[in-house]
């Protein structure tokens, strides 16, 4: 019994000491509203917040975005006139061969790209980016060559890496203007080959199936954004190509004007509406390995460098979801409403993208 009593007393004393050790600092640190109200600016200025994991003040210098894009081309246009496959396909000697029908016709072109985008916020005005695409392409064909009546060609690999500099030259409360200068490096292959009816084994593939431009290109973009209740953005951009690649051609320049509107559906979800007008030029020079001898050197429309370029107007819609201040998910679907193509040229049916933006 005596032992129990001693044990109880000792336990009480130890418990009191332990509680004192833990509770005294809590009770005596600044903690009440009155204590904080009575502190001067200078005192507040010197208060330490070293043990907090609160990230309200951490500036996110690094960004990583992943974007998956898919597009499909199906059918043909010459100017703004639709052409059927029968009109583009040269079925044999019973039909007159012209420069706009071909013994080999791509029917459906499917493109996918995984775009990895790394960004670094150098200062309030300057942001640096590196973008690296991984491209997968597949084209279904019909031809009048025996054993190649229906065939498919695929390519995949790294595309052209792009280094970018974003310069925000005006950042007012509701208006923001910035410009983006980029350098596109010829890291994508222009030597892709595949099994085609042109001969035994693998043959050089046409321009659409290559993964890069083969030239140093200069994308430039000018942007304006109104940041009010109704968020509106306008941008003008161009991809200017330089020189000629190892296969003696240069892809056409591309020019684009875009407008987009973001409407807030809920606190974190926004509806996106947009329109893009494109103009792009045909290919300069040509990869001579693709042409054949004779009056009609191009076995398919996509081999003729003049059947590239045109004008296009697209409408797009989608939504963005802000999961947290560091993560945003965006999805978008666009469809051309008007296309005027130098051709016969495969026409775009749709393009879709899913994007995850993260900052850390």
């Amino acid at each position, binding site marked *: 019994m005596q032992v129990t*009593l001693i044990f109880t007393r000792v336990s009480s004393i130890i418990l009191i000491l332990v509680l004192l050790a833990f509770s005294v600092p809590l009770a005596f640190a600044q903690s009440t*509203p*009155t204590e904080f109200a009575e502190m001067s600016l200078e005192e507040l200025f010197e208060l330490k917040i070293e043990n907090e994991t609160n990230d*309200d003040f951490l500036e996110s210098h690094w960004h990583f975005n992943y974007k998956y894009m898919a597009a499909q081309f199906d059918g043909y246009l010459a100017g703004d006139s639709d052409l059927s496959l029968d009109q583009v396909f040269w079925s044999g000697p019973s039909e007159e061969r012209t420069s706009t029908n071909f013994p080999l016709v791509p029917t459906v072109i499917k493109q996918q790209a995984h775009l990895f985008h790394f960004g670094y916020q150098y200062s309030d005005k300057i942001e640096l980016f590196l973008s690296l695409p991984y491209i997968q392409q597949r084209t279904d064909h019909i031809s009048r060559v025996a054993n190649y009546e229906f065939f498919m060609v695929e390519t995949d690999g790294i595309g052209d890496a792009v280094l970018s500099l974003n310069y925000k030259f005006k950042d007012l*409360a509701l208006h923001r203007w910035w410009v983006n200068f980029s350098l596109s490096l010829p890291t994508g292959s222009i030597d892709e080959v595949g099994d085609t009816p042109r001969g035994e084994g693998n043959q050089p593939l046409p321009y659409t199936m290559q993964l890069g431009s083969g030239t140093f290109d200069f994308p430039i973009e000018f942007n304006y954004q109104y940041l*009010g209740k109704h968020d509106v953005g306008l941008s003008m951009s161009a991809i200017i190509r330089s020189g000629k690649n190892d296969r003696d051609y240069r892809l056409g320049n591309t020019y684009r004007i875009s407008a987009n509107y973001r409407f807030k559906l809920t606190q974190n979800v926004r509806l996106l509406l947009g329109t893009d007008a494109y103009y792009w030029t045909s290919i300069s020079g040509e990869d001579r390995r693709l042409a054949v001898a004779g009056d009609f050197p191009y076995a398919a429309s996509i081999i003729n460098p003049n059947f590239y370029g045109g004008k296009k107007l697209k409408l797009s819609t989608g939504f963005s979801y802000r999961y947290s201040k560091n993560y945003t998910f965006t999805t978008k679907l666009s469809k051309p409403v008007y296309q005027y193509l130098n051709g016969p040229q495969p026409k775009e049916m749709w393009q879709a993208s899913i994007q995850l933006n993260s900052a850390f």
Partner: protein
Amino acid sequence: MNYALCLFRILSLCRLSLRSLSPRHIIAGRLSIATGMLLTSALLCTAWSANAQTALSKSSKIKAAYIFNFTKYIEWPRAAFTHIETPITICVEHNPEFNDFIKALVKQRKVGKDQRSLIVRNINDANICHIAYVKSAEAHTETLLRNALVLSDMNNKHAFSAIIFFRQNDKLRFEINMVEVNRLNITISSELLKLARVK
């Protein structure tokens, strides 16, 4: 009130424990245990009470204190107030802990040469804000914030942010955007400016 409730509950538990002891225990022993438990209960409740106060992060408390202090060093144009006794309205987002803390902090305090009182309103219920502390960049209507001195954190800068809190050397600092301050026709005292990172 919470403190008293806490003490009552812990002491009730202690009484049950004492009842379970054998009647053969000597009175001194029981008194000793009772004293120990009373002290323990008091300390537990002190710690609990203090802990409840600290549920709000220290940086949030410092921000609340800064906001109160800013009102002492900032002069709004006359037109910002309809009457000489119109209080300075501090708008905050829905965060009960922060709101309760800053309300208690500014309660019955008066600032400036006009000795204006201060009131704290939820930004979603406010018609006017003299100061607005916003954490969500997209949360509020343009018109409400256009005329307010907007405070935000570095990670949640708003289009109208005039004062931005940031962390430097484990201390809470602030940046003042003079473009916004001038647009609002607000006067900031040199004492406040000398502590700020002015942009």
